[in-house]
C-alpha cells in the first residue's frame, strides 16, 4: 500500500513538473493580457533543444538553459505578432504550434542523420531526493526530480512577484486595464513583451524537463498535448499561480493513475485509461469554472489612444 502511494506520488510530481512550468508561463502571459496558445510549440522546441544540447555538451543543466532560450525565442515571435503587429493572438499561437514542433523535428533530423528520435542524453537532470539505496523498503521507489523542485520554486517566485512587488501590480493591471497603465507612464508594449518572453522561457524549460528528466531523449511524442493541458490548468486555476499548480498536480495524478492501473492488475484497456486526464479536464471545467473571470483585457491587442 505504502509502496503504491509513494510510487503514485513520485509519478504525480514528475508528470506535473513540466506542466507546472508551462502553466505558470501561461499565467504570466495571460495576466499581462496576451493569450499564449502557443505554449505547446514552445515546449516542443524546448524539449528538442534540451535533448540536443544535453547530448552534445554532456550537461543537462546547460541543456535546460538552452531549452528556455529556445522557448523564449519562439515567444518573441508571438510577442512581435500579437503586441507590435496587433495580430490575432490565437492565430499567432496556432502558427507557433506549427512552427515549434516542425522546427524541432527538422533539427532532430538535421543533427541525428534524419532520425526523428535523438540519442539519449548521457546525463539526466539529477534527482533531488533519491532513496534507491534503501533497496527492499517501499521508499526505494520514491524519488523527486530536481525539476519538481524547480517547478515549485517557480510557483513561489511567481506568486511573490505577482502579489508583492511593483512589477506584479503592473502586470495584473495590464491584463485588466492596459490604458490605465499606459496613462500612468508605464509602457504597455515593453511590459507585455517581457511577460510573453518569460512565458516562453518557462514553457521551453518545461519542455526541456520532459527530455532531460522524464524521458532522456526527444521523440515526436515527447510533447503531445502537455502545452494544451497546461493551458487548461491556467483556466482551471483561475489565472492564479497556486491554482494553476494545484490543477497541474491533479493532471499529474490522473497520469499516475494511468500508469498505476495500466500495470495489468485492473482489466481496463490502456487506451481507455489514457482518456482519463482529458475527460477529467472537461468535467473539472464544467464543475468549477463555468464563466470564470479571465483577465478582462486578455486577448485584446492594445492600441494607443483607442477607446
Amino acid at each position, binding site marked *: 500500500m505504502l509502496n503504491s502511494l509513494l510510487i503514485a506520488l513520485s509519478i504525480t510530481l514528475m508528470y506535473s513538473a513540466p506542466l507546472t512550468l508551462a502553466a505558470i508561463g501561461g499565467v504570466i502571459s495571460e495576466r499581462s493580457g496576451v493569450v499564449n496558445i502557443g505554449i505547446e510549440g514552445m515546449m516542443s522546441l524546448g524539449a528538442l533543444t534540451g535533448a540536443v544540447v544535453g547530448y552534445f555538451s554532456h550537461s543537462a543543466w546547460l541543456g535546460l538553459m538552452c531549452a528556455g532560450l529556445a522557448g523564449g525565442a519562439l515567444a518573441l515571435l508571438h510577442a512581435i505578432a500579437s503586441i507590435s503587429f496587433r495580430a490575432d493572438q490565437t492565430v499567432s499561437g496556432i502558427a507557433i504550434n506549427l512552427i515549434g514542433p516542425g522546427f524541432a523535428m527538422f533539427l532532430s533530423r538535421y543533427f541525428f542523420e534524419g532520425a526523428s528520435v535523438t540519442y539519449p542524453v548521457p546525463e539526466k537532470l539529477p534527482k533531488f531526493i533519491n532513496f534507491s539505496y534503501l533497496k527492499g523498503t517501499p521508499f526505494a521507489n520514491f524519488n523527486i526530480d530536481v525539476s519538481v523542485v524547480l517547478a515549485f520554486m517557480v510557483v513561489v517566485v511567481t506568486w511573490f512577484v505577482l502579489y508583492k*512587488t*511593483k512589477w506584479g501590480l503592473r502586470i495584473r493591471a495590464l491584463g485588466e*486595464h492596459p490604458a490605465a497603465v499606459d496613462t500612468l*507612464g508605464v509602457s504597455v508594449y515593453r511590459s507585455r513583451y517581457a511577460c510573453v518572453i518569460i512565458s516562453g522561457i518557462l514553457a521551453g524549460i518545461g519542455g526541456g524537463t520532459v527530455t532531460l528528466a522524464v524521458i532522456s531523449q526527444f521523440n515526436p511524442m515527447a510533447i503531445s498535448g502537455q502545452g494544451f493541458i497546461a493551458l487548461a490548468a491556467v483556466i482551471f486555476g483561475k489565472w492564479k499561480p497556486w491554482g494553476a499548480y494545484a490543477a497541474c498536480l491533479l493532471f499529474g495524478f490522473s497520469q499516475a493513475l494511468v500508469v498505476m492501473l495500466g500495470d495489468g492488475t485492473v482489466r481496463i484497456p490502456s487506451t481507455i485509461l489514457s482518456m482519463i486526464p482529458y475527460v477529467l479536464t472537461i468535467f473539472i471545467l464544467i464543475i468549477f469554472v463555468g464563466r470564470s473571470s479571465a483577465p478582462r483585457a486578455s486577448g485584446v491587442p492594445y492600441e494607443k489612444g483607442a477607446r
Partner: protein
Amino acid sequence: MHDISREYAVQMHGITKYFGPHKVLDNIDLDIKKGKIHAVLGENGAGKSTLMSILYGMYSADYGKIYLSGQEAHIGNPSDAISQGIGMVHQHFMLVDKFTVLQNIVLGNETTNFFGVLNMRKAKKKVLDIIEKYGMKVDLKEKIKNLSVGMQQKVEILKALYRGSEVLILDEPTAVLTPMEVDELFETMNSLKQDGKTIIIITHKLKEIKKSAETCTIIRKGRLIDAVNVDDETEQSLAEKMVGRQIKLFVDKQDRVPGKTIFEIKNLSVRCERGIETVKNLSMKIRSGEIYGLAGIEGNGQTELLQCILGRRHADAGKIIMNGKEIQNTDIKNVLDSKISFIHADRHKYGCVLDMTVADNAIMEKYREKPFSVNGFLNHEERDKFTKQIIETYDIRPTNCSHQKIRNLSGGNQQKLVIGREIANNPDLLIAVQPTRGLDVGAIEYVHSTLVNLRDQGKAVLLISLELDEILNLSDKIAVIYGGEIVGEFRQNESDEQKIGLLMAGGKEND
C-alpha cells in the same frame, strides 16, 4: 496668443494635429494662467479632448509648441507629462476595477523597499496626507468596483495629486455626476486652486462653466474660436460660440394630454450577477403620448431593469405588462413582437454590428420576417430598398453608404440608422437609453425632435438617461431611480432640479 511668460502654467501655441487625412486641430493657441480654473469648451468631436491628450503626452502634435511656466516642454508620453507636473482625469476612468483604491493610486509610481517589493504602508501615509489636506473622503481599502462614480473620480484626482501634479486636466468631469456630486467636485477644485494648482476642465456644459471657471477657450471643429473671461459671457453667447449658430437650449414641445396606460411595471424585483437585488419592488406606468424620463446615477438598477424588460434577466417577482399582456420572463423576440423597440446606450456594443454593412444592420430585427427573408433565404433586394428608405428619411450621410461597413459612418449617422431602424418597427413604446451620448449638437437636436415627434404621434417613450438636463428638457413625467426603487415621480412642470438631484443622491424628499 500671449507672450511666453512664467505667469502662465500652460501655453500651447500653434498646435496642429492630423488623424489620417483629417485635420482635427488647426493652429490652436491656449494660454492658462497659474492658479486659475480654465475651461476648454467645445462640442463632442470639436477636438478638445485631443488637445488635452497632446498636453498629457498621449498624442504628439504635428505642429506647435508647448510651454510650461515659460519654458518650452517636450512631452512625448504620459510619463513626461507626469514628471513635469501635469495630471489628467480621463472621461472614461483609468481605474482597475479589481484593485483597491490605494493600489490604483500607487500603480506605476510605487514605493518599494528592495528589489521592487511593495511598501504599501509608506504609500498609504502619503495618500492620507493628501486626503487630509484637501478634505476628500475616500476609503483606501475599498475595491474600485464597489465605489460610486463620484468616488471613483476622487480616486482619479488623488492619483494625479499623488504624483505631484501642479496642472490638473479634468475631461468632462461632470458627465455622470449628480448635481450634489458636481457641487462637491467644484469645492474640491476650489480648494486645489487655493493651494495654487491650475485646473483645466474640458466640457460642453455651459452652466458648469459659468459656475466654476474663470477663463475659457472655445474650440469648434478643430479651430480656435475665442478665449474669453467667463464673467463677460452669458450661457447663450457661449453656446453660440461653441456651435457657430443660434441654437435652442430648450426643446420645442407642445403640451399634450397623454392617453391610456400602455406599459406598466408592477412590483418588479430583479437581481444582478452577484445575486444582489438591484431592482426592488419597482412600479411605473407609462401612457401613450408621453415621454417618461427615468433619472438616476449609473448603477442604481437601470441596467438590470432594462435587461429584465429585454428578457435577458429573470424577474424574481412582479409583472411587466405591455398592451395588457404580461411579458416578463419571456424572451427578447417576444418582447420585440409586443411592439417595444430599443435604442441602446452603447450603440457600438449593443446597437449595431460594426463590421457588417449598413444594409445588414438595418435589417437586424426584420431579417427573419417576410419579405426580407423567404423560406430561410435572404432577399437582398428588399433589404437594400428598405435601407435606402431609412437613409433618405433620416438624412444619413454619405447617401450611398448602404454597402459600406457601418464602422465607417460617423457616430451621429450610426445613431440615425439605429433610430430609423427602430422606428420602422412602428413601436408603441420606444425605450431610449442615453440616445444622444457622444453626438454633436446638430445630431442631438435631431434625436430629441424625433423623440418628441414620436410622442406627438401618440406613442410612448421611456427615456433613461444619466444626463439630468436631457431628462428635464424632454420628459412629460420624470421619475427618479435610486437603489433600484422609484423614489420620486414628478410632472414636468412640478419638477425642480434641486429636489431631483437630492433624490438621485439618495436624499429624502422632505429633507
